[in-house]
């Protein structure tokens, strides 16, 4: 993970801009650079680098001008391009640096903006400044694994940034800005690109969200083999790094699979150091025990991090600031993740963190998928979740790790894997009636491979926020109690007046919202278009625990 920041159309260079560009320095603790683009008036770029791929030459702001190849192009990119070598060979590009991102400049030069983003297999958010055509190109990967926010004003100013922090402060404090532009900041939609002339006006939005282009036979064994192969590939390409790779390990299916494949692939590559895995929770919580079993099985160097509810509550405010979200599910799940990232950053040399995010959306892992009226509805819901992931889980994993200078990698959100999986019949992807287990197809694909213990492979889901404490009182219940004591009933009654948009309906929601707005102001609350809630249940609480299906299971 790195941090990018760009500003166009402001004719001053002042300390305010630095202040903003520096608000996300945590994303790139190794190096930073701030500069203007000499051939374009009032264009400023900043880059905070976390060194993962490409050594000295990989520093950005990147130009490829040594041999006067592309002197008119400037790039800042937060991302990894997994197929950079393939593309380089395919099109015989001459690289100047060892950085994977350089391929973006060459592709853009050869094929233009749209084709460039289509050809990239990876996770990315980038800005290209083209001083010959006098325009700026912005693009973001399929699932928005790499974050990017932007705004464009009527009078021709544009800002781009990895985190809202870098923009909101600037907009708040920038002098001579008549209208309040805070409300203009939006998340840049994943799987999109935008070409804008410096004169703002032409703003093209092209691109399909998900391309489901893999069609194969419906033989179950073939399907399962394809799933294994694609998943293994997805993990393997994400090992691209010269920094130590570790894995989160909650004890659930998803992270266990990812950790196991990662461990296997690292061993195959001859990496001598064992993989470090990390779980967080209260001692003897079911997840911690399960994670321990997996760690033993895959022979990882396992770290169990525990935290008290008080520690969690103490971290609440900084977590919300790091997240830039007030969504209840997101905040709840982020606190343990934020704490574990801090632990990793302070106590180990692991920088790249593999994670299981995305599997629940793709393979219909949430308990409420049991309640789907029809496979078609389940399919639609699954795709909707994937489309909006950048607002919730993807945002959470990026921000919780980035705050501590780590980089997260989510192989379940590999474009090739996802599009193949989604191309399978909806009825195969829904929870199976026969044994009542969600993510059946994914589990059965790895059945018999001895990758992870069978009991884990078929273990029921526990949402991250629930599973980390003991069965009786979940972490979020303790959190709720604490918040309840801090907010009066009157305050909650007044919430409708104070927050006409997304009115918080619980004290917990109100508390998060209030903390969020104290940092970012009320206008940015639009960045979260809706609260994450399970479908088909009529519940107001996003936790899996309150669902009947889950409760039955516990008895």
């Amino acid at each position, binding site marked *: 993970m790195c941090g990018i920041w760009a500003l166009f159309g402001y004719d001053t260079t002042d*300390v305010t801009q630095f202040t903003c560009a520096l608000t996300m320095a945590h994303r790139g603790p190794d190096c930073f650079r701030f500069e203007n683009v000499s051939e374009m008036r009032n264009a400023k770029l900043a880059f905070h680098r976390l060194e993962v791929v490409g050594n000295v030459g990989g*520093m950005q702001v990147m130009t490829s001008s040594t041999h006067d190849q592309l*002197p008119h192009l400037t790039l800042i990119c937060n991302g990894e391009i997994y197929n950079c070598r393939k593309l380089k060979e395919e099109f015989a590009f001459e690289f100047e640096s060892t950085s994977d991102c350089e391929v973006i400049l060459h592709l853009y030069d050869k094929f233009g903006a749209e084709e460039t983003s289509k050809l990239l297999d990876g996770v990315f958010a980038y800005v290209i400044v083209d001083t010959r055509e006098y325009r700026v190109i912005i693009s973001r990967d399929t699932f928005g694994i790499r974050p990017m926010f932007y705004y464009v004003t009527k009078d021709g100013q544009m800002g781009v940034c990895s985190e809202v922090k870098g923009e909101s402060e600037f907009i708040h404090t920038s002098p001579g800005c008549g209208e309040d532009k805070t409300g203009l900041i939006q998340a840049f939609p994943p799987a999109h690109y935008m070409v804008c002339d410096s004169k703002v006006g032409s703003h093209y939005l092209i691109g399909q969200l998900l391309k489901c282009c893999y069609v194969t036979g419906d033989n179950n064994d073939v399907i399962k083999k394809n799933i294994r192969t694609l998943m293994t590939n997805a993990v393997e390409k994400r090992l691209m790094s010269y920094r130590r790779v570790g894995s989160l390990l909650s004890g659930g299916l998803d992270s266990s699979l990812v950790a196991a494949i990662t461990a296997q692939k690292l061993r195959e590559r001859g990496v001598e150091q064992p993989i470090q895995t990390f779980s967080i929770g209260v001692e003897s919580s079911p997840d911690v025990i399960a994670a321990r079993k997996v760690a033993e099985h895959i022979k990882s160097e396992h770290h169990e991090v525990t935290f008290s509810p008080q520690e969690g509550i103490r971290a609440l405010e900084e977590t919300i600031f790091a997240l830039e979200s007030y969504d209840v599910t997101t905040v709840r799940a982020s606190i343990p993740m934020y704490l574990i990232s801090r632990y990793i950053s302070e106590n180990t040399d692991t920088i790249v963190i593999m994670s299981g995010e995305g599997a629940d959306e793709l393979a219909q892992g949430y308990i409420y998928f049991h309640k789907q009226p029809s496979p078609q509805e389940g399919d639609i819901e699954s795709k909707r979740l994937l489309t909006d992931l950048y607002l919730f889980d993807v945002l959470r994993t990026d921000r919780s790790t980035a705050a501590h200078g780590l980089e997260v990698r989510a192989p379940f959100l590999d474009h090739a894997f996802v599009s193949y999986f989604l191309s399978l019949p909806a009825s195969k992807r829904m929870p199976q009636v026969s044994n009542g287990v969600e993510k059946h197809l994914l589990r059965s694909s790895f059945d018999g491979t001895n990758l992870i213990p069978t009991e884990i492979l078929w273990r029921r889901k526990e949402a991250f926020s629930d599973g980390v404490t003991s069965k009786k009182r979940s972490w979020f219940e303790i959190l709720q109690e604490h918040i309840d004591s801090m907010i009066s009933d009157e305050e909650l009654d007044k919430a409708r007046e104070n927050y006409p948009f997304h009115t918080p309906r619980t004290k917990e929601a109100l508390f998060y919202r209030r903390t969020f707005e104290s940092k970012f102001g009320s206008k940015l609350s639009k960045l979260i278009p809706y609260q994450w809630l399970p479908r088909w249940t009529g519940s107001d609480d996003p936790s899996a625990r309150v669902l009947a299906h889950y409760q039955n299971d516990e008895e």
Partner: protein
Amino acid sequence: MCGIWALFGCDCSDLVRCKEALKVAHRGPDSFQINNLEGLKNSMVAFHRLHVVGGIGGMQPMILKKYPHLSLLCNGEIYNYKTLQKEFDYLFQTDCDCEIILHLYNEFGGKKASQLLDGVFAFIVIDTKQNCVMLSRDSYGVRPLYYVTTKAGVLGACSEVKGLCELPVEGGIRHFPPGHYMFCDIMKNGKVIPSTPTKFHRIDEPPAHLQYQRLELENGLEEETVKRNIRYLFSRAVDKRLMGSRRVGSLLSGGLDSSVVAALTAQKLKEHGVAEPLQTFTIGMNSDSTDVIAARKVARHIGSEHHEITFTLEEGMKAVKSVIFTLETYDVLAIRPSVPMYILCQHISRNTNNILIMTGEGADEVAQGYLHFLEQPTPEDGHKESMRQLQQIYMYDVLRIDRCTAAHGLEIRAPFLDHAFTSYYLNLPADMRAPKNGIEKYFLRAAFAGANLIPNNTLWRKKEGFSTGVGEEGTSWFEHLQQHLEGLVKKYRFARASQSYTHNTPRTKEELFYRQIFEKKFGSKLDRICTYQRRPKWAQA
């Protein structure tokens, strides 16, 4: 001109650093870059670029693929970079003259690299393999460099004092001495071990880079031979300073020095096939002043497109504050002539596309042009005085012409301070260089006599300092200024000056006035950065 800035071992926040680094942004209006260095804790460097030589690849900090452990920040022009490139067979990655520094540094080390450069420069090389940082500055300090080191392990360096004076650093900011280099080791924790500058050049000795240049000098000390050599070396000095992709203009005061420079510039530009005429610039309080009229004549003679700018006492007074802030000095002799120059540069920057500005500074020191040289007891004393002035010129005239132009995004070029030229001139017998027949700069004038370069009466015209000559007939600009300031400074304040200012106590109300403005801007910590220009014993102040 560009602006460089570097800070090592300082624990202050990035924001504080950035703030300081931006204070010299005026020196490089075209591009800037601020970054820290990989693997060096607590380091930050910044570069503000004025595009003169080289394209995008010339952006700094420069890191070559070949030597990824070296970072270069350089404000300067290296005139002999192509010669050296050929001589040592270097493969260049950029089209920028400064790249040569990294190749030389890598092959010969910092000292010899500095010696081999023919040009004006202030540079910083950061070597992350040897874990050291190196500073270096040209023979006369035409390019500015200040630095600060502390026992606590901080090293800061910047083109101007402004970029260092608000850092939370205990330690005095000093001029980096011209013709010196310095190596400092950097420890693992980013702290710098203080060290002291070492001399690599002497201005009265031929520079080491001459061994790689083919000079067509004639031997012997016959007057005609020497004059031919002077003309030859000086034409070269002008010619090499035309390097760059931006338009060259010339200041033209109407005195000998700037006239010769403007004339040779016009001539050389024509030889290079530049179609646009040379633009020349004069400033005065009155269009009838002697200098303005003299400049007009020269302009007509050399066929330049001449611009005359006038200013009033009010405009001058209004500029004094900005001038002091720009100059970072309270020296009277630097401030007085800077006011018109500052106004003139502002005009050039706003109304023309000239970026490179030729000027005659340095001639009075090299060729003994100041009126007090007429009083010298012996030619030997004259020589000593000339040397003394040249060694200190970086604090006075050189500082003035750099800052006045830099404040407006222009770049100054002073051919009279060419090392090859001055070392030849200073090695001529002392009596040859002393004033003759009551005429200062006698030999320099004689060298250009008969060349029809400038009108004969200008060639032999008596000196009028830039500060004196710009005023109306009878009352010079600085007399106006003095009178005006007399009224502004309260008597009781002046009476207390010796208590208020123990270092360099102001001796006149004018001095006190400047000093007050200076300390308001920079605080009293910086008062040691300048010393009043001392008059030689044998001169009548």
